[in-house]
C-alpha cells in the first residue's frame, strides 16, 4: 500500500516536472507552474492507521472492515504550484549526467550517460540502481546536468520580459512607490475575493502595463532604459544585449514582497528560477528506447534532444576552461540556448524546429502535452472501453423492438463473465469445452485471484480440470444478454438504450426500424456502437433505467418517440380502411403476423380489417381520437368501431396518441408488445396487397386541370393588377414596410395562396385508392403538397423569405426585361414536376435546391455547437424534492420545475387533462 502511494506521488512529480516546462502565466498569484518540491511538502499526511500486522490481530468488527475499505494513507489537503529551484532539481536527482554517450561497446548504459541505470529501468529483468525495484514497479528517477552558462527558459520568456520592464535596472525594486505597493496589494486581494482569480489576473496585467512608461525608479531615482524582447529569447536594453546571466542577476535582486505584486508566490517560485542554471533530466521511463527487429536500438526523441544539450554543454565547458575567444563562447552559448529551447518546445515561431536526420521534426515536451493528440486531451480526457462493438446498421422488422441483432463474429469476440458456483458448474463447463472457436463457447477463464487465462484448444483440458466455484468464465454473447446500444451524437437520453442481444448471421448490427426515431438513425451507412455491461449491477441498472420500453415517452414533449413508421402506418391504414377477408384468411393473416390469440375475432364468415386489427388490442381498452383527415376514431372495449389507423394514432415522434394512451393504461412493456404486433400487422398487410408509387397516381382528370389553370391564371392576373396599382402609386403600404416591400409581400401572398388552392383541387380530385395518395393520406410518407407539386404546380420558389431577386441588375435572368415584376421573372414555377419545368423555372428551382443544401451543411455544425454549449451550461441543474430547480451550489434557478411543476415525461404533451382524469375515474 505504502509503496503504491509512493508511486503515485512520484508520478505526479514526474508530470509536474514536465508541466513546469510549459504553462505559466506569471502575473497570477496562485501560480500554475507545477512544482515537484512544494506540493510534496504541502501534502499533509495522516498516518494514524495501525500497521497491517497489528490490524490482523484485532478482531474484525464491522467498523474495522469499513475502516479498511476506506483506507486513507495520505490525504491531500492542498496543492501549491510553483517552479523547480536549482536546489530542488539537485535534490530530487539521482544522477549527474556528464557525457552524451549512451552505451559502451558491450551495449551497456554508460555511467553518467543519458541512459544511466540510476535513472530507472526499461529492460525487463533488470533492477533499478536507485530504488531496487523491477521494470514497471520503478517509475524512474530524475537526473540533472549543470549548464556551463545559464539559459532562459523559453516558456517563461514573457514573464521575464514583464519582470525586467517593471523593475528598476539598478535596485531591482518594482517601479511603484513604497506606499502604493501596499494599496495595490490590498486592491488585488479585494478584487480576488469579489470577482475571483481571473479578475485578479487581469488586474495584475493592467498594473504591469501601466509601469511600461515609467522611466525613473521611485526608490533609487535611477534612470530606466527600455528593454525589448528580441524573439525568440534575447533581451535588449537600448541596443545592448542582456545575457541570461545579467537577466538572472536582476531577477535575483527582486525582493520577495515585490514578487507578490506580480502574482508570483516567492515561497514557491523565485523569479530567477526562470533562468536555468541546471537542467533536470527526465527519467528513462519517460523516454524509453525501442529495440528494432534488427536488434538495433532506436532512441526516443527526447533522448536525442538531451544528447544535443549535453554535447554542446560539454563543448562550452571545455572552451570556457581553455579560455577560448568570447565569440566562440557566445556562439556555443546561443547553440545551447537553442537546444534547451527546442527541448521544451519545438514549435517556436522564430526558431527552425530541430529535426531528425530524416527531416521530420522532433517531438519534444510541449508536443507531448499539447493539442488534441497530446497527453491531456488524448490520454487523460479521452476514454476508450473494452467489450464494445461498432459496425454499420441495417433494419430488421422481424426483431423485437427491444432487441439488437449482433453478428455471430462479433458475438464470439464480446463476452459476458459468469461466476462458477455449484449450481451452474455443469452449465458453464459446456462453454469451456467448446473453446473460443465454436459458437456458444468461451474465451477466457479468470481465477479467483484475478489472473486471466486464455482458453485455447491446448489449454482447454487444463482449464476444465481447474474449474471450480469462484472461478469466472468469459462466455460468448448469447441471445437475451443485455447490451447498451448507442448512436452518436448522443444528444438525449434515448440515444443510448438497453437492448437484448439476438445473435444473427452476416456482418451488420441490426435494429427494428421503429427505434430509428430515438437514435435518429437511418441506413445510408450509419454506424452504431454496442457495449456489453460486465457486472450484475451494471446489467440491472441498464435494464431498469434504460431499456427501450422505459424510453418510449420522451421527456421533451411527453408523447411517444417510438411508434410505427412508413410500412407500419400505411399497412395498418390499408388494413383498417380497405381490407376484408374470410375467417380462414384472417386467421392465416394474423398467424403470419405472429398473433396467435384469435379468441377476440368475431364469429363471422367475413371479417373486416378493423376487426382483425382489434384482436391485438387489450380487451378493456377505450380510446377516442381523430384520424389525420379529421374523422373520429373510436375504440370501445378493445374493438375498433370506427375510423382508420394512421400516423396520428400509431406514429412516433410526437404523434401516436393511441400508443400514448396504451402506455398510460397498460405500461411500457405491454405497449412495446402491442406496438410490435401492430407493426407486424402492417407489414403483413403490405406483403399481401403490395404498395408502390405509380406515375399515374398523380394523374388528374381534365376537369381538375382546367380548374388549376383557372386558379393560376387568376392569380397571375391579380398579381399584374397589384403591380399596376404599384406603378400608378395607388398601393397602400403596410405599417413599417416600404411600398416595394409591400408589393413583394402581396405578390408572395397571392402566389402562395394559389398553390394552396391547387393543393385543395388536387386533394378533391385525387383517387383515394391510388398508392401514393394512400401514403400521403395515412401520413406514412409524402403529403398532398408533394402530390400537387408533381401534378399541378410547383409554386413560388422562395429564397430567404423573398421571391428570387438575385442575378443581373434589375432582373433575374437575361431573358426578362429589366424591372419585370411578373411572377415568372421572380421564380414562380407554374408547371408541375410531371409536366416538366421551363428552362427559367428549372433554373430557379435549382437555385433553391442548392441553397437548401448549403443551408443544411452550414447549419448542422452550428446548431450542434449551440446545443453543446447549452447542455454543458445546464448539466448540473437538477430538480430537488421541493420542486425547485437548483444548480450545484444550491442556488435556485426556478422556483418550480418548468414553472408549473409538471414532469413532462409523465404528462401528455406537457399538460395534465383534468377532465379526462375525472371522466375515466
Amino acid at each position, binding site marked *: 500500500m505504502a509503496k503504491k502511494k509512493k508511486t503515485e506521488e512520484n508520478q505526479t512529480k514526474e508530470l509536474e516536472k514536465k508541466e513546469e516546462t510549459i504553462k505559466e502565466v506569471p502575473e497570477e498569484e496562485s501560480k500554475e507552474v507545477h512544482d515537484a518540491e512544494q506540493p510534496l511538502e504541502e501534502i499533509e499526511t495522516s498516518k494514524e492507521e495501525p500497521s497491517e500486522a497489528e490490524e490482523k490481530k484485532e478482531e474484525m468488527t464491522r467498523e474495522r472492515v469499513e475502516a479498511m475499505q476506506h483506507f486513507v494513507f495520505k490525504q491531500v489537503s492542498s496543492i501549491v504550484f510553483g517552479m523547480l529551484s536549482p536546489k530542488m532539481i539537485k535534490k530530487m536527482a539521482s544522477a549527474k549526467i556528464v557525457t552524451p554517450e549512451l552505451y559502451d561497446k558491450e551495449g551497456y548504459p554508460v555511467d553518467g550517460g543519458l541512459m544511466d541505470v540510476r535513472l530507472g529501468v526499461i529492460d525487463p529483468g533488470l533492477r533499478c540502481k536507485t530504488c531496487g525495484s523491477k521494470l514497471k514497479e520503478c517509475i524512474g528517477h530524475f537526473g540533472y546536468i549543470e549548464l556551463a552558462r545559464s539559459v532562459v527558459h523559453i516558456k517563461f520568456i514573457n514573464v521575464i520580459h514583464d519582470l525586467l520592464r517593471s523593475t528598476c535596472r539598478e535596485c531591482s525594486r518594482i517601479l511603484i512607490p513604497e506606499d502604493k505597493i501596499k494599496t495595490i496589494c490590498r486592491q488585488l486581494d479585494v478584487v480576488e475575493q469579489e470577482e475571483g482569480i481571473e479578475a485578479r489576473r487581469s488586474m495584475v496585467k493592467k498594473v504591469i502595463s501601466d509601469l511600461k512608461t515609467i522611466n525613473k525608479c521611485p526608490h533609487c531615482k535611477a534612470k530606466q532604459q527600455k528593454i525589448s524582447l528580441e524573439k525568440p529569447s534575447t533581451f535588449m536594453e537600448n541596443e545592448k544585449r542582456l545575457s541570461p546571466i545579467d537577466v538572472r542577476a536582476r531577477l535575483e535582486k527582486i525582493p520577495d514582497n515585490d514578487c507578490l505584486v506580480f502574482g508570483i508566490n516567492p515561497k514557491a517560485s523565485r523569479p530567477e528560477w526562470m533562468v536555468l542554471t541546471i537542467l533536470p533530466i527526465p527519467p528513462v521511463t519517460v523516454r524509453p528506447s525501442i529495440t528494432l527487429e534488427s536488434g538495433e536500438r532506436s532512441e526516443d526523441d527526447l533522448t536525442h534532444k538531451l544528447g544535443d544539450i549535453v554535447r554542446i554543454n560539454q563543448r562550452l565547458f571545455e572552451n570556457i576552461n581553455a579560455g577560448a575567444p568570447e565569440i566562440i563562447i557566445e556562439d556555443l552559448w546561443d547553440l545551447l540556448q537553442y537546444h534547451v529551447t527546442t527541448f521544451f518546445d519545438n514549435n517556436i515561431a522564430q526558431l527552425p524546429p530541430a529535426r531528425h536526420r530524416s527531416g521530420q521534426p522532433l517531438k519534444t515536451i510541449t508536443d507531448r502535452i499539447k493539442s488534441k493528440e497530446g497527453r491531456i486531451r488524448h490520454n487523460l480526457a479521452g476514454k476508450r472501453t473494452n467489450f464494445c462493438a461498432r459496425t454499420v446498421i441495417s433494419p430488421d422488422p422481424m426483431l423485437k423492438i427491444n432487441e439488437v441483432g449482433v453478428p455471430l463474429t462479433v458475438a464470439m469476440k464480446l463476452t459476458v463473465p459468469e461466476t462458477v458456483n455449484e449450481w451452474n458448474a455443469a452449465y458453464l463447463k459446456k462453454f469451456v469445452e467448446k473453446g473460443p472457436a465454436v459458437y456458444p463457447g468461451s474465451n477466457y477463464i479468470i481465477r479467483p485471484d484475478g489472473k486471466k487465462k486464455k482458453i485455447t484448444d491446448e489449454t482447454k483440458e487444463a482449464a476444465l480440470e481447474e474449474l471450480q466455484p469462484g472461478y469466472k468464465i468469459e462466455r460468448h454473447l448469447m441471445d437475451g444478454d443485455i447490451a447498451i446500444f448507442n448512436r452518436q451524437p448522443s444528444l438525449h437520453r434515448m440515444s443510448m438504450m438497453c437492448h437484448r442481444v439476438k445473435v444473427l448471421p452476416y456482418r451488420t448490427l441490426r435494429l427494428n426500424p421503429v427505434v430509428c426515431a430515438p437514435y435518429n438513425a437511418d441506413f445510408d451507412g450509419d454506424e452504431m456502437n454496442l457495449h456489453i455491461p460486465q457486472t450484475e449491477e451494471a446489467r440491472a441498472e441498464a435494464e431498469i433505467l434504460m431499456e427501450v420500453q422505459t424510453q418510449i415517452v420522451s421527456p421533451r414533449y411527453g408523447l411517444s418517440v417510438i411508434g410505427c413508421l412508413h410500412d407500419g402506418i400505411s399497412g395498418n391504414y390499408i388494413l383498417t380502411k380497405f381490407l376484408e377477408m374470410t375467417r380462414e384468411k384472417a386467421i392465416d393473416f394474423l398467424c403470419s403476423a405472429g398473433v396467435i390469440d384469435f379468441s377476440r375475432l368475431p364469429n363471422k364468415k367475413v371479417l373486416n380489417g378493423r376487426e382483425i386489427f382489434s384482436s391485438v388490442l387489450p380487451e378493456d381498452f377505450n380510446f377516442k381520437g381523430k384520424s389525420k383527415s379529421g374523422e373520429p376514431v373510436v375504440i370501445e372495449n378493445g374493438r375498433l368501431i370506427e375510423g382508420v389507423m394512421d400516423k396520428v394514432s400509431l406514429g412516433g415522434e410526437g404523434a401516436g396518441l393511441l400508443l400514448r394512451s396504451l402506455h398510460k393504461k397498460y405500461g411500457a412493456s405491454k405497449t412495446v408488445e402491442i406496438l410490435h404486433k401492430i407493426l407486424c400487422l402492417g407489414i403483413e398487410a403490405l406483403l399481401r396487397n403490395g404498395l408502390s408509387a405509380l406515375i399515374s397516381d398523380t394523374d388528374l382528370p381534365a376537369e381538375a386541370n382546367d380548374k388549376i389553370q383557372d386558379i393560376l391564371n387568376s392569380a397571375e392576373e391579380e398579381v399584374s393588377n397589384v403591380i399596376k396599382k404599384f406603378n400608378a402609386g395607388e398601393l397602400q403600404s403596410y405599417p413599417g414596410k416600404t411600398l416595394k416591400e409591400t408589393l413583394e409581400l402581396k405578390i408572395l401572398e397571392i402566389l402562395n395562396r394559389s398553390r394552396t388552392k391547387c393543393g385543395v383541387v388536387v386533394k378533391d380530385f385525387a383517387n383515394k385508392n391510388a398508392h401514393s395518395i394512400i401514403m400521403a393520406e395515412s401520413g406514412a410518407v409524402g403529403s398532398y403538397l408533394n402530390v400537387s407539386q408533381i401534378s399541378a404546380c410547383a409554386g413560388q420558389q422562395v429564397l430567404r423569405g423573398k421571391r428570387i431577386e438575385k442575378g443581373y441588375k434589375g432582373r433575374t435572368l437575361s431573358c426578362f426585361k429589366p424591372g419585370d415584376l411578373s411572377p415568372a421573372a421572380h421564380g414562380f414555377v407554374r408547371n408541375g414536376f410531371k409536366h416538366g419545368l421551363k428552362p427559367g423555372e428549372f433554373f430557379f428551382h435549382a437555385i433553391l435546391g442548392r441553397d437548401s443544401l448549403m443551408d443544411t451543411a452550414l447549419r448542422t455544425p452550428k446548431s450542434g455547437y449551440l446545443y453543446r454549449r447549452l447542455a454543458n451550461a445546464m448539466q448540473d441543474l437538477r430538480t430537488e424534492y*421541493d420542486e*425547485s430547480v*437548483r444548480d450545484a451550489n444550491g*442556488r*435556485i434557478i426556478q*422556483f418550480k420545475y418548468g*414553472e*408549473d*411543476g409538471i414532469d413532462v415525461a409523465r404528462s401528455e404533451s406537457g399538460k395534465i387533462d383534468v377532465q379526462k382524469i375525472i371522466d375515466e375515474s
Partner: protein
Amino acid sequence: MAKKIDITKHLLVPKHVLVSDSEKKKVTDTLKLSGKELPRMLKTDPSLADLKVKDGDVIKIIRDSKTAGKTVFYRRIISS
C-alpha cells in the same frame, strides 16, 4: 423634453412586490434557504423605483408563464 415613462406600468415589466417579514420567513422555511440561494437583484433596479427596499429584502415577482399562466419568482436585494 422627453416624456417620463413609468416603466413599471410597461407591458413587459412584471409586477414586483415587496415581501413582508412573515411571508419571507415562510418562503425561507419551505425552500430551506440559508440566504445565498435566492437569485439576486440590484437595489437600483429600475423596476423597484416605486418600492422602498433595503439590503436583504425579498422581492416577489409575478410573471406571465407559458406553462403555468402566472408564476412567482423571488429575488433578494443586494446593494452592489
